[in-house]
């Protein structure tokens, strides 16, 4: 066994052990909204593909001095899923190791619901529910999985540049004050 093989196996074993710990830990003690994962738990969570929670365009100067637009985004990783077919949720962790909860929703605000209905028509068959708040110019779409919600969110951001489209995640529960 050369160093590379040894290193690879050690990494693999470490990864598997981390996954086991993570799975075991989550199974026995599901992380709560607002808690922080340890570095090792985080490493295990990030071993899976992330989901883009949001993105924004910023203007930056290139090396040549020209102004160019750059897209930067926030990534979250799925820890577990739960709930029912009508009330599903996904526990996630963000880049800062904070645990959050998504109800697999896409929130569309600053857009009259009459206009929103047209724009989201293609996504309604995949959504498990939709709530229109006409007088608040807000719409909430809900999907079975966070992945579906993220996909719809990204597409609707492009389709509805005049609106605020987001993937709401709760990272802190309210408490009595």
């Amino acid at each position, binding site marked *: 066994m050369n160093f590379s093989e040894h290193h690879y196996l050690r990494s693999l074993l470490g990864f598997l052990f981390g996954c086991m710990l993570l799975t075991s830990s989550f199974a026995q003690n599901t992380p709560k909204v607002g808690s922080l994962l340890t570095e090792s738990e985080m490493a295990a969570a990030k071993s899976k593909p992330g989901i883009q929670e949001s993105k924004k365009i910023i203007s930056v100067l290139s090396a040549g001095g020209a102004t160019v637009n750059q897209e930067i985004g926030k990534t979250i990783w799925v820890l577990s899923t739960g709930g029912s077919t009508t009330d599903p949720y996904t526990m996630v962790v963000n880049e800062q190791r904070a645990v959050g909860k998504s109800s697999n*929703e896409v929130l569309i605000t600053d857009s009259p619901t009459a206009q929103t209905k047209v724009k989201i028509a293609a996504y309604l068959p995949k959504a498990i529910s939709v709530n229109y708040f006409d*007088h608040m110019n*807000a719409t909430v779409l809900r999907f079975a999985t966070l992945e579906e919600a993220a996909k719809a969110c990204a597409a609707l951001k492009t389709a509805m540049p005049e609106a605020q489209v987001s993937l*709401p995640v709760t990272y802190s529960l309210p408490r009595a004050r």
Partner: protein
Amino acid sequence: MKKTFLTLLVIFALGTQLVSCGGDSGSSSTSSCAETGLYACQTGATEPLYTYQWALNAAQSFFASYTPVSDGTTDLNVDAVHKQGIKGQGVNVLVLDDGVEINHEDLKDNVNPSMTWNFQNNNTDPTPTTTYDAHGTNVAGIIAAVQNGIGVMGIAPRVTLGAAGDMRKGLNAAQQYTAFGGAPWSINAHIINYSLGGNPIPPASYTDAIAVGGQPWTNLRSNKGLIVVQSAGNEYIKIGQRDCRKVSGATQIVSCENPVNDYSLLNPMRLSIAAANAKGYRASYSSAGSINWITGLGGESESIGNYGEAGSAADKQGPQIYSTDLMGCERGNSENGLSAVDTVQFMIGGSPINMEKNPNCNFDQMAGTSSSAPTITGVVALMLSANPNLTWRDVRHILATTSKQIDPGYGSRDGRNKQISLADYTFTDSTSTALTDGASATRIDYGWQINAAGYKYSNWYGFGLADATAAVAKAKATTNYMSAALTLPEFIPVPAMKNKSFTYGQVTKLGEFTVTGADKVDGMQLRLNAGTKDAGTSDDQDSDDSSSTASDLCIGSVGIYVQSPSGTVSILAVPYNIYYNTDTQLTTTNDYGLGTYAFYGEAAAGSWQVFTVSGKPQETCTTAGTSSISVEYRIIPMP
């Protein structure tokens, strides 16, 4: 038998009050009274527990003579409004909390069943199903307890009351929109009281879309806008097990938590309410920060004696806010089995005081900004009752301009007027207010300030302690109404403050930005991210290529100060803040939000300066002496 006797007692007491109507009992002459009915234009003196409701009338309260815990003058100046017969008539108040016992003997007559919901089981009864969730019932009583000769009286005892529980379980977006005006049971709310809040670890991302509010609320209340009154938080000293670093070993110098870390309070339509005690000082727990709007009354945290009269406010002792509790001695905060170590005799089921004044344990006292917020909700209800045409902007402007300055000298108490060495967070001997680029010491609290528009503002008290009589008088006199429209401008990146390097342990002027036009400032907000840097450089401006890496930015060590074109300095965050001990770092996409109302009414035009005032970071956070930061800003204009 006991109930019959008590009923007779109440009727007798009420009769006594009616006989003395117009005298010193607090009643007014009926000639100018617009209210009708048994209690027309009478103060809360008709209620048996009124004497303990110092927030209504401190001078006549039981606590007035207990000078270590009460100054006998600090109240909300409510009685004069009640004597006019203004008691919240025509105003719908919705309490979003852990639930409300809507059949409580002192609440039920004000409850509108079409304004109730329970998220726990999705039915219309918000009564808590547990024996201990009394928080919302306390809140509701402070606002809306009925004037009926029983127990206490709310600040607006004739409002229409709605309620929802259980808001603490963490609602999803659809549920939040439902609760905050999006459902048949919430759409008719004129005021929402939200005595809840969060303390995220680490700082969340500030985006407008997630927190409900702002533009969606301007259409409510017949296009005059919903008013949301919210608690600032009880984390001045610490948050649970999360402690904050002390200044020269002393606590209580600066606030541990910053209310703004609950980003919902950055919404201008949500009023962040601080708390004062019966001595007229900041309650020991009340979180301080530059987005606090005004102060209500919350009492002290450690109440002892028969009713809260024992001890000293200096030791965090004193009376709290008397209100409604879950009914019965097996439920709520007043109950059997308590000890004098935990609470006052009034709440200990079966104690002689309890048996005399609270035999059914239907009433209790509660401290916190959870209590101070509903005192302000009550005041706002009185204002809207006096003038229902006020827009949400009118309401907050009137509150800001009629509130009273309290505790004027706090800025120099406990050494707070001294500069702090940023390297080790100890007091120096200098009291200079100078904010100098490169300095290793500076002030971390300016106390009360008067801004260029003439408004007094303090991070502890906002614009001051509410004065119901002054606020209602101004409400009644208002005939020109401010626009209810709300536009939140996009954040603007500041080129001079992109990937800007700063040094820990000193003041660093990050740069300036210039605003033009004739706008006056309502609020000012910043959004911060860690900068990026290339390997081997500490300050690589304007280079965001893919080879860049995130700069360590130990946000717990970083204070943020802003100086307006008029010269007013506001502290948006203090160094060694709540994120210090958790070694929290900002990311390049964090969008950490901060805000301030210290510049309210000032001209926006001119050059704005932004400073980092940084302590030394934990070694585990970064070993470098510098970090870089990117700053975006927006000025929210007055209409």
